[in-house]
Each structure stands twice: as structure tokens, then as C-alpha cells.
């Protein structure tokens, strides 16, 4: 069932709240990653409020879908979305990266057991999601109802281990696995196509026997269709290559790789994010990505 206009408006409002929380966390922490969390906010909002089978009050519910965040550095969006979904109080978000906090600089499930995995070192999340999908199949056969969702950064695909996992998932035809690649075109040292070209990225995944979709990562209707398709495909693993604008929502940050790995700290930067995110009711209409036609 397609999303109604009303539902989309609701998601846009939630996404704005989550972006504001991300910015507040980063300003308070004074360190952390800004671009990725802001560009994945819409997809995280969609996943946690629409697609995911989960129970925030019972995080260890055994029939839940699994979410593996491989690019752990974008954890502010994970933490903020989980808090806004009811996993823990929104007020706890401001402890990000502080001594004794459950919200470690990169996710650690020893501190926050409701996380499915710890992550940070790039390239190993997909393997874990593949392991989960295989284990599920051993237990339940191909019709297992749990979906394994794994988030990857595009720069992260430089890591060879991903391709080991992509190869295995293709061979195993893991229909219960959906990967989202954050195709924001940036990594720490620059633009991905300058550092280590990934294109033609969809063709690479197809060559490994994956079901491939490309989607505007800021268009809820398109996101909804892509996740629906991914769930419907049962004979192959699915990848959704989500074209996103790094730093989405703060015009001064958008598209700049310099915002990959730092937090807003100067009064001018803080003023820029406040102006962008607190003077609007939603980012609806402002966040159509130029890649929408893709």
C-alpha cells in the first residue's frame, strides 16, 4: 500500500525532528560526523517508522528484523532515530561521545545492548548481515520472515571485505537481505569518484547476482517503493543504491566532503544549522534531490 500524502507529511516532520536531534548531539559533542547522518535521515525515518518489524519496548524480541549499521560513523542518525522511535529517551542523545555514555562514538553493543552489532571499522557489517541471513535460513528455510537490513557507505565499498560478502550473498541467493548504500559521493579525502571510482556501481552489484535498485534517498514515495520491491524479491539479495546529498538540510554543508567527519563547532556554523533546521516546519519540498530521476 502506497504512502498517503498525510503519512509522507508525518514522515517529513519526524525526519526534521531527527535532523534537529542529530545537530544538537553533534554541537554538544563537538566532534563526530555530520554529512552522512543528515543524508541518511529520511531513509532511517522511513525504515524505523514504516518498514521495520520491531518493538522498541522489547528490543530483544526474537522475531524482529535486524538492522546492521556497517558505516558506524553515521551512528548519530541511528541513535536519534532509535530515540525518536521510543528505544530510549531523546534526552539521552546529548550524551553522545561522552565518558560513560551508552552512545559511544562508534556503536558498541556492550554499552547499548539493543544494537545488533558494534561497528566502526569499515567493511565488516555486510558480512555480519550475511551471516544473520544464512543463520535464519538454516533455522526457518527460505521463507524466514525476518529481514536483515544493512547500511553501507559508498566510500566504504573501497574495503575488499564487502566484495567477499557480496559474492557470498549472491551465491547463497539471500532473499531476506536488503542492503542500502548511501551513495552520497563523498569520503574523508574527497569525492568518491576522485579517490577510488565506484561507477558503474549498479552494474557491479548486478554482476554479483544482486537485485539492484537506484532511488532518490530523500523522496519518501520512492524509498517506499524500493523497500517494497526489495522485500518482494525472494530469490536474490537486494541492494538499494540511495542517491543522497551529504549534509542534507543545511545548505552551507550540502555536497561538501569537508563535512564528512566533523561537527558544527563555530558560532557561524551553529547559526547556519539553526537557520536551516529550526526556521522551517519540515524540509518537504526543499529536499528533492537532483538525482530524483535516477
Amino acid at each position: 500500500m502506497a504512502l498517503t500524502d498525510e503519512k509522507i507529511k508525518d514522515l517529513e516532520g519526524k525526519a526534521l525532528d531527527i535532523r534537529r536531534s542529530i545537530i544538537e548531539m553533534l554541537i554538544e559533542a563537538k566532534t563526530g560526523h555530520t554529512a552522512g547522518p543528515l543524508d541518511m535521515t529520511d531513509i532511517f525515518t522511513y525504515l524505523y517508522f514504516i518498514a521495520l518489524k520491531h518493538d522498541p519496548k522489547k528490543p530483544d524480541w526474537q522475531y524482529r528484523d535486524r538492522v546492521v549499521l556497517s558505516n558506524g560513523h553515521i551512528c548519530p542518525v541511528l541513535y536519534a532515530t532509535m530515540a525518536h522511535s521510543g528505544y530510549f529517551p531523546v534526552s539521552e542523545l546529548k550524551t553522545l561521545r561522552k565518558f560513560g555514555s551508552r552512545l559511544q562514538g562508534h556503536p558498541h553493543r556492550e554499552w547499548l545492548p539493543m544494537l545488533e552489532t558494534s561497528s566502526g571499522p569499515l567493511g565488516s557489517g555486510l558480512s555480519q548481515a550475511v551471516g544473520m541471513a544464512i543463520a535464519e535460513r538454516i533455522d526457518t528455510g527460505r521463507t524466514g520472515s525476518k529481514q536483515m537490513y544493512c547500511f553501507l557507505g559508498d566510500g566504504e565499498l573501497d574495503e575488499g571485505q564487502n566484495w567477499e560478502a557480496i559474492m557470498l550473498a549472491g551465491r547463497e541467493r539471500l532473499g531476506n537481505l536488503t542492503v542500502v548504500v548511501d551513495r552520497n559521493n563523498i569520503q574523508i579525502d574527497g569525492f568518491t569518484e576522485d579517490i577510488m571510482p565506484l561507477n558503474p556501481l549498479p552494474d557491479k552489484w548486478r554482476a554479483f547476482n544482486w537485485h539492484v535498485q537506484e532511488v532518490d534517498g530523500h523522496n519518501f514515495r520512492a524509498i517506499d517503493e524500493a523497500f517494497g520491491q526489495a522485500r518482494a524479491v525472494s530469490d536474490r539479495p537486494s541492494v538499494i543504491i540511495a542517491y543522497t546529498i551529504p549534509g542534507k538540510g543545511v545548505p552551507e554543508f550540502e555536497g561538501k566532503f569537508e563535512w564528512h567527519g566533523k561537527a558544527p563547532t563555530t558560532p557561524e556554523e551553529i547559526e547556519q544549522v539553526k537557520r536551516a533546521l529550526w526556521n522551517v516546519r519540515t524540509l518537504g519540498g526543499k529536499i528533492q534531490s537532483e538525482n530524483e530521476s535516477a
Partner: protein
Amino acid sequence: MINPSQKLNPKIFDADVEQVPIRKGFGEGLLQAGINDTRVVGLCADLTDSTQMNLFKQRFPDRFIEMGVAEQNLASVASGMAAMGKIPFITSYAMFSPGRNWEQIRTTIAYNDRPVKIAGSHAGISVGQDGGTHQALEDIAITRVIPRMVVISPCDAIEAKKATIACAMTKDPTYIRLAREKTPIITTDATPFVIGKAQLMFSPGDASKTPDKKTEVGIIATGALVFKAIKVAQALEQLGKAVKVLNITTIKPLDEEAVWKLAQECGAIVTVEEHQIAGGLGGAVAECLAQHCPVPIEFVGVADKFGQSGTPNELIEHYGMGESHIKAAVMKVLLRKK
């Protein structure tokens, strides 16, 4: 004399003592662990026969995953399976797992606190002809520094089988070190085995040969070289030297009490292992004794070198881990005793 309470192989000193590759015990143990618990799964990186996972694969094809030559994926896929309640055993050569995939083991297995069991076959210099690239001499060092990781180095195939069955029942991420070559059988099915417990294998017992003597040197050994350590102790007993041999199967957590009590009793220690001297059993023993009971220690192992091709015996002798070297280390440490 051989410690009777350990119920060791009565034929241990026979010329035709039975010899079995340690890895074979792992294969039999894994099969048994798989029978005992349906949660046990096996993953292998294209070395199913030589790591002896084939027994498990044949019996439980649906619980076996062929990973191809991809050790990093091997470690992390196992972590994901453990997250869903499985007890994964992963195998490759020790050089590649835990060698190549160390960070994946650290982060996705140990940091994540997943009960993955890492079996590294072909460990040590006795891999032989394959040469230095394939001789893992650093694996104990790199695994024992990882928090939560249990490190087990069996002395023969029977002990390897027991260790494999035992570690399938713990929640701990565990590394099991396996040698390729045929190794003399020291223990029996009746020999007690507990993870974390050292075993006294040999103690001076023949009063006619060592009258009124308390033990002069303690040898602490692990893996396939435990056999040589026992033989040296027996030969020294004939010469009137009183030596004890402690088998350390579990290098981490180390049975510290057994180690420092032996040091306290003997006042001098020799460590014996088929591994770099730095960071291995010798390092673990030295860390323990520096803190609890400082005594002179001599280290038998590889002295900061890479291996090369050769027969196992040639290499053991060339790199200083033969019986003559163990004996020389005992004599040297005796001279250093105050």
C-alpha cells in the same frame, strides 16, 4: 616420572608411540560438538579437508558453509551467525585466520562478544615444506592480546578433541591452535581436561635417581613440543636432574597459580613453544612471574625470525626447538639460579 594422576599414554616413551596430527583431533571433536548441539555450525575458507572440517561437513551439510578463499568474510559472517544464536567454528590455516583477519576477529567477534571458535590449523614451524609464508609463529601473540579471547593450544590429537568439545559449550570467543604434522599421543581419553587448567605431566619421582632433591627446574610447554619437553625431563632424570613439566593447554586465561607455584618450588623456569618467543607462551609466563614470583626464565621458541622450507624436524632443529635445545636451556637456567 610421568605424573600418574594425569593417566597419560603408557607407551609415551616407546619408539613406536602412536602419532596423529593434532588437527585430526579437532575434526573429531567438531563432529562430536555438532552431534551434541544443533547450534554448532562450521565455516571454512577453502581448506575443508586439510583443516579436518570434512567430518562435520559430511555429517551436517546443511550446517556447513563453504566460504571460498575469504578469511575476513569468514570471521564476520560467523559473528553474524552467532548473533542469531549459532555456535560457529571457523577454520583456515592459522596464518590466514587469525592472521589475515585479525581486526575482524577483534571487532566483529571479540568486541561484539560473540561465541565464535577460531581453529587455526598448520600453526608453527612444523608446517614444513610450504615455507615461511605458511608458518604461523605469531598467532598466540595476536590472539591473546584481544580482550575476552580464550587461547587454547592442545598438545596432541586427544587433547584437541576434548578442547574442541569443551569450547563449544562456552560463551567465549576462542582460538584453538592446531599443528599439521603427526604428533605423538601423550594423553588418553582418561586424562582430565578443563579449559584454564594447567596439567603437571612429569615430576621427578624416582628417588634412586634423584635422592633428596627437590625440583630444580620447571619446564612450561605448550602444543606439539610438550612431548619433547617430557622426553627431556625423563633424560635429565636419568642424569640426576630433577625437572617438572607443566602442560599449558590454555594460554589464556593462564593458570597463573600453577605457573607461580611451579616457579616458587623450582626457582627457575624454561618455556617451550613452537612460536615466536615474543608474545607467546613465554611472554605470558614472564608477565605472570614478573608480577608474582620473579625467577630466571629461559625461552625456547623462534627468536624473532621467519621460517623457511624444510622437513619439520630440520626446521625444529634449525630454529632451536629440538630436545637438545630444551636441555641446553634447562642447564643454562640452572646456572642462573641464585
